[in-house]
């Protein structure tokens, strides 16, 4: 287990940090970027494409770079440090990851190549009203007429669903199980209603009414397991993104304590506040460790191990993120309640990441089902 970055990884981190920092170093820039649809900077998206970031996870033959999870994690951390609004996680890691995992070679080359080039934005339409987190679809159903497939039902919330150029849609298959489909958003029978989310992101309700759909990969195949694994990878990458945001929150908080005066002295004169900052640091370090470990497990582990590592990282990110976020606001005081100041929005974004694919309590339930089956945990085994 090696927690250090090699030279290439450090170079990647510096490059992404430079690009993202330039765009969003000043929080007001981020605030402006999310004000109007699509909720991010198309220009910045193009720059990320140019730098090769949008193709990082995909195989070279699919138009990507074939980088490993550590590299993807680095990108997510850097995006998290400024809560850059570009949909790398939703479009590249999640939706792109599904195409990479389940698509035919032709589909991969076509879709991922365009995604990597910044020409085509993907979105994964999966959540369904009234259902909780999971890997299967139920309310959107697929039916086949010969080789032609069509989808009916409602997906909501779909991250970046209104802006997407191509939808990856999960649907219940006629013979049972869940399949994945590619749907053109301008196809007949597709309606989209986009809206902003509280962290400046975007989501949509996407309704399908007999909309034409192309099976992703082999038609009719139950790919629930593939969806689950890509979701697990996304959980870990969301954890990386949250980690970056938490680092910024702690930094902002300690900077504030050092400079803000009350009662004629700076706030770091007050031991009770300093000790709470120390506890934030503890949460951050523990989160850092689990996220870095889970990122390595993606490279080395089988799907079950990845699932467990993702659940463990998500649990810690949820607990640590809430602690760090809530304390960051409290230690700042009133200023952190305002939209003009960055801290509140960082906390909002952490909250959104926390509820994207299952919060800490959800992960406790997941892990509880297996807790009786082993003796002690051993991170070196995976």
């Amino acid at each position, binding site marked *: 287990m090696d927690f250090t970055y090699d030279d290439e990884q450090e170079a990647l981190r510096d490059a992404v940090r430079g690009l993202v920092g330039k765009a969003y170093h000043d929080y007001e820039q981020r605030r402006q970027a999310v004000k109007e649809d699509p909720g991010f900077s198309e220009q910045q998206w193009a720059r990320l494409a140019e730098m090769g970031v949008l193709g990082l996870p995909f195989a070279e033959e699919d138009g990507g770079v074939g980088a490993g999870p550590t590299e993807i994690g680095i990108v997510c951390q850097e995006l998290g440090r400024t809560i850059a609004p570009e949909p790398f996680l939703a479009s590249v890691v999640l939706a792109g990851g599904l195409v990479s995992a389940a698509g035919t070679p032709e589909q991969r080359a076509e879709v991922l190549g365009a995604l990597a080039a910044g020409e085509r934005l993907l979105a994964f339409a999966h959540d369904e*009203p009234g259902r909780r987190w999971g890997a299967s679809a139920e309310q959107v159903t697929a039916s086949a007429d010969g080789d032609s497939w069509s989808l009916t039902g409602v997906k909501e919330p779909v991250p970046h669903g209104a802006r997407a150029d191509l939808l990856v849609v999960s649907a219940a298959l006629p013979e049972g199980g869940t399949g994945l489909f590619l749907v053109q958003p301008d196809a007949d029978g597709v309606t989209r209603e986009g809206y902003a989310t509280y962290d400046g992101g975007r989501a949509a309700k996407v309704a399908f009414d007999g909309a034409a759909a192309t099976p992703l990969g082999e038609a009719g195949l139950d790919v629930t397991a593939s969806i689950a694994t890509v979701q697990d990878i996304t959980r870990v990458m969301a954890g990386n993104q949250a980690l970056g945001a938490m680092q910024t929150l702690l930094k902002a908080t300690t900077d504030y304590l050092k400079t803000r005066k009350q009662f004629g002295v700076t706030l770091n004169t007050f031991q009770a506040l300093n000790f709470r900052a120390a506890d934030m640091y503890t949460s951050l370090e523990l989160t850092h460790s689990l996220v870095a470990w889970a990122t390595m497990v993606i490279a080395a582990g089988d799907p079950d191990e990845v699932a467990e590592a993702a659940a463990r990282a998500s649990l810690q990110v949820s607990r640590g993120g809430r602690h760090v976020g809530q304390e960051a606001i*409290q230690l700042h005081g009133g200023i952190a309640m*305002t939209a003009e100041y960055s801290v509140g929005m960082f906390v909002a974004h952490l909250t959104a990441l926390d509820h994207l694919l299952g919060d800490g309590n959800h992960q406790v339930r997941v892990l509880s089902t297996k807790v009786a089956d082993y003796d002690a945990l051993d991170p070196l085994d995976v």
Partner: protein
Amino acid sequence: MIEGRELTKEQIVEAQQTLNAAGLAVPHWPEEYGGRGWTDLQRHIWLEELQRAGVPTPLAFNASMIGPVIAHFGTEEQKKEFLPKTANLDIWWSQGFSEPDAGSDLASLRTTAVKDGDDWVVNGQKAWTTLGQFGDWIFTLVRTDPDVKKQAGISMLLIDMTSPGLEVRPVQLIDGSYEVNEVWFDDVRVPADNLVGELNGGWTIAKFLLGNERVGVAPVGSTKRILARAKDLAKETSDGEGGTLLDDPLVRARIVELENELLALELTALRVVAHSADGEPHPASSVLKLKGTELQQAVSELMVDLAGPASVASGAGDASDLAEWARISTPTYLNLRKASIYGGSNEIQRQIISRTILGL
């Protein structure tokens, strides 16, 4: 606030005027000024009942803050002029206390008032003025003597918010709402008659007012109502595995713990108000603020977790297929982070407990 939607100004005014017509808007005020002379305990129970029923409680700035101050410190003219309109919410009062550099350290406020003929001329800036955008008048702490120890040079002025030179700038909060404001004073002229109490006696009035604020500041009734609603929602919401969220032992346990702490808090509130002497809040009232806001926040966090994936869809309109309670859960959670900051932060409450009660 049933369903957690924000109320309009008109709804709040209507509710208070309806209560006032029945003699129940300010029942803790002296009878001569439209009250019934109720004890803290009577009033506490009354407010709790209003909250449980989802009825908007009388505007605190009027009923709990400036009203009692005018009744206690005001001149006869001030009482006659302001108290009836204050009770009936014909005047919407705002609070001009905090400043950008005077939050927890209120006494370091810098807004000045300088005597010029029969007027005070006020300059400076107030911050965190809740619902200031609706305000007709603002009761304001100003520095009237810059040369003495900081608490000793403060006075309270009543200022008409339509005065020339007074500007209200709404500040957007992290949930997108507008409920606090900056209030700027640029050579605002205030008649000398609008001084409350003694010149340079404002700190005494502020302590009186903040003490009143702390009694009954624990939003027990409304938090109970929201927790009961959370339970209903958990009972109605599928867990995706054939049951409901309330079938989950961890959800149940979380609710049990919250209910128990709320019960303990409610009983503590009854103990505290029953023992608070006139005008002097029981020191343990800091416990109510501290624990009350923590529980308020914890229940709002529970709501977000119950809402699950739907909780992100805060900006969705009526076309959404997601439940409205789920869509507003996170903005509410984020908004309520203020509860432990405003009105004397929880750190200030801990300070009060450790100093005043524990003698540390």
